[in-house]
C-alpha cells in the first residue's frame, strides 16, 4: 500500500489553527531555508490511510496472541476510560501540589498495592518500561555498594536463559555481566553460580519463573548464596503474572524488582510502548530511590542519597492510572490471574507434547517452550516456518528463537484471559501444521500465504538500509 507521503498533493490539507489575534512577531534569528516535507492530505484520506494500516495490524483484540514473555492479556476498556479523564490527562506535571492531590493519592495507593503484591517496602514509578526499571534497579544496587565503600563489586550475574535486556542493562549500569549456566532441568546451575560468586559480586538478576517457564526449585538457596557473598538479588518481573498472589519476590530473598505494568497489570502495549516499569525495593535501598518519593500521600520529597531521575517528570503516569484501575477491579483475588495463566499454559503443553518436543517436560508455569530442533533436523522445517504458518490461522505466533538455551525455540504464553475454545483452536492449528511439516513441508516453509505481504527479506533490510521515505 502507498505511504502517506505518496498520497500527498500540494495545497491540500486540513484547517486546524485560528488566525493570529495579536501582531505577528517571530524571533529575529537567521531565517529557515529548508522546509519539512510533511504530508498534505484531507482528513478523510488520512483517516482511510490509518484505517488501512489498522487492518494490517494484529492486536489482542484481533485474536489469540501467545507471545511468550510478553503476557498479551486482555486490556480492559475501563482502564482506557479512566486514563482519559480530564482530571488526569489534562494535568500539567508542574502544577502546584495542592492541585494534584487526587493524582498523588492514586500513585500512593498503587504503590501500596504493588508493595503488598511483591513484598517490597517502596516502589518508584520513574522507569518508563521494563528495561528502564532494570536500569533503575541496578543503579540502586550500585549506589548501595558505593555507599558502603564497596565499589569494587562490579559484576552482575545473569543466567544464560535471561532476557537480553538484563545483560544490556548491566552494561548501562557500568557492570560486567557474568553468564551463569542453566542445568539440565532448565534452571540455575547451583555449582556454576557458586563458582562465580565472590568479592566482586554486586548482584544476581533472575527471572523466576524463568524464560523456559519453570519455577526454580532452589530459589531460597540461590538468594541465600548471593547474600552470603555480599551481593543483592534482582527480580526481573517480566514473568510476575505466573506467581502473582502466590509468591512474593521479597519473601524469597529478592531485594529489588521491576514490574512490567504492560504485561502483568493489563495496560496495552501500543505496538511497542508505552509501558511502565516501576521498580520496587526493600527499605535499606530506599535512601537511593530516584525521582521524588511520597510516603504520606501528600508531599513529594527527594530521597537522601537519590540516584537522580530516569525520566523528565514522574514516569508514564497515565499507564499507572490504567494499572491502578485494573488492580481495583481484581482486588485481593490476584492469585486467580496466576492460577488461570498457569492452567492455560499447562493445558496447551499437555495437548501438544505427544507430537512437539517440549524443551523441559514438566509442569510449567505461565509459559512453555517447544524445542523444534529434532524436527528441524529431520525435515528442515524451522521454528520460524511454524511461526509463519500460524499467521495463516489468524494466530499471532509465539516468541521464537528465545530463550537462547533452547534450539529452534517456540515460547508459548497463552495468558489467563483466553477461553478453552481459543486454546483448543490453537492446539488444532499446531497439530495441523505438524501434519503439514511431514506431508507437505514446503507449504510450511512458504507460509504465510494470506497476509498482506508474504515473507519479508530481513537481510536486505539490514544490508541496504532504507529507514525513511525518499522524496523525488
Amino acid at each position, binding site marked *: 500500500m502507498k505511504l502517506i*507521503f505518496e498520497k500527498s498533493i500540494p495545497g491540500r490539507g486540513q484547517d486546524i489553527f485560528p488566525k493570529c489575534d*495579536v501582531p505577528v*512577531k*517571530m524571533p529575529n534569528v537567521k531565517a*529557515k531555508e529548508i522546509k*519539512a516535507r*510533511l*504530508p498534505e492530505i484531507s482528513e478523510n484520506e488520512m*483517516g482511510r490511510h490509518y484505517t488501512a*494500516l*489498522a*487492518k494490517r495490524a*494484529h*492486536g489482542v*483484540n484481533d485474536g489469540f496472541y501467545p507471545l511468550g514473555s510478553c503476557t498479551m492479556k486482555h486490556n480492559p476498556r475501563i482502564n482506557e476510560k479512566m486514563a482519559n*479523564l*480530564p*482530571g488526569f*490527562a*489534562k494535568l500539567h506535571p*508542574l*502544577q502546584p501540589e495542592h*492541585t*494534584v492531590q487526587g*493524582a498523588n493519592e492514586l500513585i500512593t495507593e498503587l504503590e501500596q498495592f504493588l508493595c503488598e*503484591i511483591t513484598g517490597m517496602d517502596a516502589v518508584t514509578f520513574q522507569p*518508563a*518500561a*521494563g528495561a528502564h526499571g532494570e536500569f533503575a534497579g541496578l543503579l540502586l544496587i550500585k549506589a548501595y555498594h558505593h555507599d558502603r565503600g564497596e565499589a569494587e563489586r562490579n559484576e552482575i550475574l545473569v543466567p544464560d536463559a535471561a532476557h537480553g535486556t538484563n545483560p*544490556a542493562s*548491566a552494561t*548501562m*549500569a557500568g557492570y560486567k555481566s557474568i553468564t551463569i549456566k542453566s542445568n539440565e532441568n532448565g534452571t540455575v546451575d547451583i555449582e556454576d553460580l557458586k563458582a562465580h560468586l565472590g568479592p566482586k559480586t554486586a548482584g544476581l538478576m533472575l527471572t523466576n519463573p524463568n524464560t523456559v517457564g519453570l*519455577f526454580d526449585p532452589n530459589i531460597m538457596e540461590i538468594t541465600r548464596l548471593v547474600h552470603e557473598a555480599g551481593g543483592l538479588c534482582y527480580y526481573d518481573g517480566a514473568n510476575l503474572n505466573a506467581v502473582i498472589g502466590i*509468591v512474593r519476590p521479597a519473601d524469597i530473598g529478592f531485594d529489588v524488582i521491576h514490574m*512490567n505494568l504492560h504485561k502483568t497489570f493489563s495496560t496495552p*502495549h*501500543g*505496538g*511497542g*510502548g*508505552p509501558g511502565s516499569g516501576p521498580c520496587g525495593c526493600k527499605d535499606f535501598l530506599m535512601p537511593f530511590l530516584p525521582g521524588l518519593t511520597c510516603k504520606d500521600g501528600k508531599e513529594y520529597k527527594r530521597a537522601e542519597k537519590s540516584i537522580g531521575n530516569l*525520566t523528565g517528570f*514522574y514516569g*508514564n503516569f497515565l499507564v499507572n492510572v490504567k494499572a491502578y484501575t485494573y488492580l481495583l*477491579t*481484581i482486588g*485481593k*483475588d490476584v492469585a486467580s490471574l496466576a492460577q*488461570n495463566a*498457569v*492452567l492455560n499454559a499447562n493445558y496447551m503443553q499437555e495437548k501438544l507434547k505427544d507430537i512437539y518436543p517440549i524443551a523441559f517436560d514438566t*509442569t510449567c508455569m505461565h509459559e512453555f517452550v517447544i524445542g523444534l530442533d529434532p524436527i528441524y533436523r529431520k525435515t528442515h522445517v524451522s521454528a520460524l516456518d511454524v511461526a509463519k504458518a500460524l*499467521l495463516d490461522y489468524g494466530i499471532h505466533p509465539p516468541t521464537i528463537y528465545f530463550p537462547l538455551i533452547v534450539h529452534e525455540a517456540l515460547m508459548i504464553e497463552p495468558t*489467563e484471559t483466553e477461553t478453552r475454545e481459543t486454546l483448543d483452536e490453537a492446539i488444532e492449528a499446531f497439530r495441523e501444521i505438524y501434519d503439514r511439516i511431514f506431508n507437505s513441508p514446503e507449504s510450511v516453509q512458504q507460509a504465510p500465504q494470506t497476509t498482506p505481504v508474504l515473507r*519479508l527479506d530481513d537481510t536486505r*533490510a539490514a544490508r541496504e*538500509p532504507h*529507514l*525513511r521515505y525518499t522524496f523525488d
Partner: protein
Amino acid sequence: MGTFIPNTREEQLKMLKEIGYKDFDDLFKIIPDEAKVKGELNLPEGLNEIEVDRKVQGLANKNVVFRSIFRGAGAYNHYVPSAVDAIAGKEEFLTAYTPYQAEISQGILQSIFEYQTMIAEITGMDIANASLYDGASAAAEACWMCKDRKHSTIYVSGALDWRILEVIKTYSFGRESKVVVIPDKDGVTDADALRKALADDPEASCFLMQYPNFYGIVEDVDELCKATHEADAKFIMYCHPLALGALRSPGEVGADIAVGEGQPLGLGLEFGGPYLGFLSTKEENMRTIPGRLIGETVDTKGDRGFVLTIQAREQHIRREKASSNVCSNEAWCALRAGIYLSTIGPKGFEEVATLCSSKAHYMADELGKIGMNLVYGGEFWNEFVTTCPDAEKLNAALEERGILGGLPICDGNILWCCTELNSKEDIDEVIAAAKEVF
C-alpha cells in the same frame, strides 16, 4: 469482584482433571511451600465496573484542571486535533505488541516508518529512530552515542532544563562518564567558556544544548556548533519540535544529533507521561542509534514491506554489547505524532510556530507595560522570563481564576509560556489580574 478470566470455576476444574491435576494446589505444588505466600494478601475486595468508575473518577475530580495554561518548562499545552484520538484509539494499534512478526504487523511498522521520515524531515536529519521514552532519556542516550574509547566527557549547557540534566547525570552514574556543565551568562551558554573547556579536554565527546533553551532563548547555535566541531566533539541539539516550524532545523545548523520531547506533537499534558523521546541523526551514525529502527524491504513476491532492522545493535541480539537496553519504547505516542504532523501538514507546522511566537511576544510586551520586564535580552520563541514583584501571590490570584500562571524560577522571576491555545483575551486576563494584585 471484577474479573477478566473467561473460564468458570467448573470449567477450570474440568481442564485441570483432564491434564492430570486434582486442583490448583496440585498444579502449584511445583513451587516449594516455603516460597509461597502464607494467608491472604492485604488488598481490598475487587470492585465491579461501576464501582471502579466511581472511585477513579472521584480521584480525578480531586485534581484541578486549569482552563488556561501559561506554564511550559518541558510540558506544553498544545491543541490535539480530534483525528489523533480517534485514529490512535483503534484497538489494532493500541493492543498490539512490538511488531516482531512483520507479516501481520505491517500497519504498525509502516506507521512508524512514516513517523521516522517525519521526524527526519522536521529536524533536517537523515534518519530517526522509532522513539525513546521521553525527551530527557533520549538526551541521555544521545550523549552515550557520542562516546568512543578516547572520548567520554559529556558537556552540556547551563541553560539546559535541569530535569534533562538530571537524567543525563543519572545515566552517567551508570555509564561512568563525566558530565560538565558550561555556565550560562545572561541566559545563554557562555561560548568562550565552552571553547576553553573543550580545548583543554582531549576526552570531550559531545556538547548538548537546548533549542530554545530553558529560559526560552534561541541561542547563537552557529557559534556553539562551530566551537564544538573545532574541538572534534559532536554537537547535540535538544529541540522543541514545534519551534522547528519557525527556526532553522538542527540539520540546517549542522548538528550531529537532534533529540527532544515529542509531547507537543499530539500528546496531552498527562501529568508528565507517557511522552515521546525523538532522536535523529546523520546516516553515518546509523549503527550506534539506540532503540528500534524500521526499515523498508521486499517480500518474496517483490512487494514493498517493512521490518524491524539493524537489530544487531539491540539487546535481544547483542546482549551486554548492545547500544542500549531499550526494548519497549513509545510506539503508540509516535503513532500519535505521525497523525498529528499529517493533520497539520507543512502549512500548519508553520502556522502553529508563528502563533506560539506571536502570542509569547504579545504577552511579554504587555507584562513589560506593567513593570514585569524581560530578564534576558536574547531572542525568544514560545517561552520567556520576566521579573515579578511576588510570583507566589500572582499565581495564587491566577489560580482563583482557573489560570495556571508561569513557572516561578530563581530570583523571584517567572518563566512564561504561550501556545496557540492562549487567545489574546486569555493573555489580557492575566495582565488584568496582575494589575489587580500589584
